């Protein structure tokens, strides 16, 4: 352990915070594949954010003189069936894909984790009600449920995010509940009770932080799944609406021209692959870095 002894007084909180972050960061940095995953994710986020600033053509601008052109100096990734620039659409589409991934998982975590904690900690009929509802949702395959909900809510990107979020919620309820069941048996919960901490404090300070690492890992993995789900919904016309681009809807049109213009399908496909890979690697790395027990 190479820690420098500081003479900082005990109440010097910023110093402590910095030190704890350093420890996690150091572990994360030594994890090669996690760094690669992080870099991929950061790359796509930057691209998505920078879309309005980049010197690229309007993603909705059509050009009838350049229909389904192969990649060239004028159009680096080629053009689609009505002459729109594929690279421009890919970059703008990154916004929809990433937002769909992050927002829908955000919804799932926001509802799933508290429900899972309640079910796991209190047990009894609370658990029975929450678990039965969860199982009912889990009985329907993830994508089918998302499609049904999206169709019910009406086709738009926002509704697609909500539909994917609801469909992903049971995973988080189940995961959290399982974690809480094992953490409930931990001695430190007993000792927290013995020093007289109230239940809300035990849930927020003792239970939540200790279930968080697996949830974080699951979140990054689910973001990957949600991106694919958004692509699937857009592919079916239930997500991003034309002419706004998303990777899924690009694939949707590209499937009709696989023989004539394979680049139309290739770029969004490759993008989905790499962003999903990035989130998966990132998840694994975070799990290792954030676990305070493992060192």
């Amino acid at each position, binding site marked *: *352990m190479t820690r420098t*002894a500081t003479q900082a*007084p*005990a*109440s010097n909180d910023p110093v*402590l915070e910095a*030190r704890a972050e350093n420890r996690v960061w150091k572990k994360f940095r030594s994890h090669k594949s996690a760094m690669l995953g992080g870099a991929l994710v950061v790359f796509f986020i930057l691209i998505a954010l920078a879309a309005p600033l980049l010197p690229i053509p309007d993603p909705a601008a059509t050009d009838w003189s350049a229909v389904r052109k192969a990649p060239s100096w004028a159009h680096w990734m080629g053009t689609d069936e009505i002459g729109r620039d594929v690279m421009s659409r890919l970059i703008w589409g990154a916004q929809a894909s990433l937002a769909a991934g992050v927002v829908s998982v955000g919804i799932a975590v926001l509802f799933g984790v508290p429900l899972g904690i309640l079910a796991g900690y209190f*047990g*009894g009929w609370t658990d029975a009600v929450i678990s039965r509802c969860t199982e009912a949702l889990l009985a329907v395959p993830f994508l089918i449920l998302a499609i049904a909900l999206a169709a019910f809510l009406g086709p738009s990107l926002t509704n697609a995010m909500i539909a994917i979020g609801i469909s992903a919620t049971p995973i988080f309820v189940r995961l959290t509940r399982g974690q809480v069941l094992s953490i409930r048996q*931990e*001695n*430190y919960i*007993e*000792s*927290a*009770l*013995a*020093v*007289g*901490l*109230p239940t809300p*404090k035990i849930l927020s*300070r*003792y239970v939540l*932080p*200790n279930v*968080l690492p697996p949830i974080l890992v699951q979140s990054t993995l689910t973001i990957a799944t949600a991106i694919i789900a958004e692509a699937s919904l857009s592919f079916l016309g239930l997500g991003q609406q034309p002419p706004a681009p998303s990777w899924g809807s690009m694939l949707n049109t590209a499937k009709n021209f696989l023989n004539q213009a394979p680049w139309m399908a290739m770029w969004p496909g490759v993008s989905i692959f790499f962003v999903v890979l990035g989130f998966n690697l990132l998840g694994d790395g975070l799990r290792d870095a954030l676990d*305070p*027990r493992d*060192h």
Partner: protein
Amino acid sequence: MELSNLVLRFRGQPNDVVDHVSLAAKSGEVLCVVGESGCGKSVTAMALMGLLPPDSSLISSGNLRIGGETFDLTRDVVPRAMRGNRIAMIFQEPMTSLNPAFRVGDQICEAIIQQGGATRAQARARAETMLRRVGIANPAQRLLEYPHQLSGGMRQRVMIAMALANDPQVLIADEPTTALDVTIQAQILDLIRDLRDDIGMSTIMITHDLGVVAEIGDRIAVMYGGQVVEQGPVREVFDNPQHPYTIGLMSAMPGLERPGARLAIVPGTVPTIANMPEGCRFRTRCVFATAACARRPALSEIAAQHQVACHFVPLEENIEVAR
């Protein structure tokens, strides 16, 4: 502190796991509760703290008196406000009794703020004082560390600091040294003794190690099958054990008198709760048992403060008659 007539049963079991147990410890006194695994020691302690889940356990009788106040354990669970404040507990497993996600300083502070309404800064100062008091060098530095950075002995000291931070009147220690190695064990016992002298709390020490009892105990209560079978001052009980189970425990201790000699054992194991015999619960393992033992013996006083639950006390005189 005085616990009277605790009767406790797990739901779905035919017999009581804790059967009319009464324990008392004056302030500044260490009461050691001994007995083998499964005799109800820990369950009694948990019931005192109100830590047993109400959906699986049922307390049908029991009063707890701390200072001037009396609590009916059958009705109110020991109020949360009292836990950690008037009555505190340290556990068997220091390695896992601290929250791994927070610095030890934060955990001690939380316990202090929770009870006293102290400010963050006051709590920190108090936590530092407590760590110094339990013999941790460089406490300011240690407060900033995570549990995994501390050794087992160090963690048990932190647990003790946390338990004693709010000056409890009663400290329950559930086998606090079992998970530690022998030298650390001695240090922790010394620490508990010193703190008892300083703070003057009543201490209930749960253990199965008679060496620990000799080291630190003022009074001893021997439990078997959920009942107190013998209790009294440690010296008195050690010199003159009267219950056959106590005698068995004593002779199972390695001594210095006859090195190399085989240790005596108490044959068999504690029967499960469902299979507890009627009458004296020890009779299935007792070498002296007769038909009379089918009746439940009462705790009777055989010397000053020395009580035994056996039909044949004093054993030396009565055992020939019994045969």
